[in-house]
């Protein structure tokens, strides 16, 4: 058992950034993404016996990450407003935009909130394909393997996600 733990630790070290980045795409918050990463690895550890090696380990882990993230979002739908309010304040007071004047900071904060809201409002499959494509830079083939779908349908999902985002953001950032 102890040997299993030390082997698994190697996996955790190797894949933690990948899982964290995907989780960030779904929750847009460092603390929540870290909690999700932890949940993903605990789930993976508990069900590692069911991994038969038919797909790559990373594909299997991505699947767990996507499912865990979507479950988390469904569970916490009611607290979305509080998260947005918190993120809005965090964006506004963040030090990263130190070279911008208050007006520019406010503009960027509003834009960020609108973009986040637009991404979050995408249908589940479009959102999954979009996050895997943009946050993890995966190819359509890899996304298709994770979503157990075809490359053609992933391409469609990405195209629809792009169109939906542009529609939703037209009033905020223009075309």
């Amino acid at each position, binding site marked *: 058992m102890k040997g299993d*733990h030390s082997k698994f630790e190697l996996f955790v070290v190797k894949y933690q950034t990948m899982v*964290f980045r995907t989780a960030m795409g779904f929750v847009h918050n460092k603390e929540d993404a870290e909690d999700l990463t932890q949940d993903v690895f605990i789930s993976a550890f508990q069900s590692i016996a069911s991994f038969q090696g038919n797909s790559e380990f990373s594909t299997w882990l991505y699947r767990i990450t996507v499912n865990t993230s979507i479950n988390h979002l469904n569970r916490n739908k009611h607290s979305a407003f509080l998260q947005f309010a918190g993120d809005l304040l965090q964006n506004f007071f963040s030090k990263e935009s130190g070279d911008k004047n208050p007006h520019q900071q406010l503009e960027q904060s509003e834009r960020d909130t609108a*973009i986040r809201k637009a991404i979050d409002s995408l249908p589940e499959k479009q959102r999954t394909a979009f996050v895997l494509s943009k946050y993890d830079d995966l190819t359509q083939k890899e996304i298709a393997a994770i979503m157990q779908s075809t490359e053609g349908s992933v391409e469609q999902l990405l195209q629809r996600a792009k169109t939906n985002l542009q529609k939703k953001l037209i009033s905020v950032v*223009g075309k």
Partner: protein
Amino acid sequence: MKAEDYINEYIDREKQTEHNPYLATRIMAKIELPKNKIPRIFRYAAVAASISLVIMMGIVIGNSYTSLPKQYAGININDSEMENFTLYNSDGNE
């Protein structure tokens, strides 16, 4: 700037967010924690049983209370009669 550029800029900023350097340690510590073997249903049952026990004990203790009989002590002022011994026998009247 196009909407797509803004989206990409936003995503790039989010991608630069780094996780806690001790995240792997934290995850392994959580995995190595001994599992709580008591099923959740038994934990709920234990809490409910404790509350019921406290209520029952309250009722039993409350019912068992009976006020102590008042101890009357009389003083005989008639010296021709025998002295009232209840004065000396009753507790707490010393």
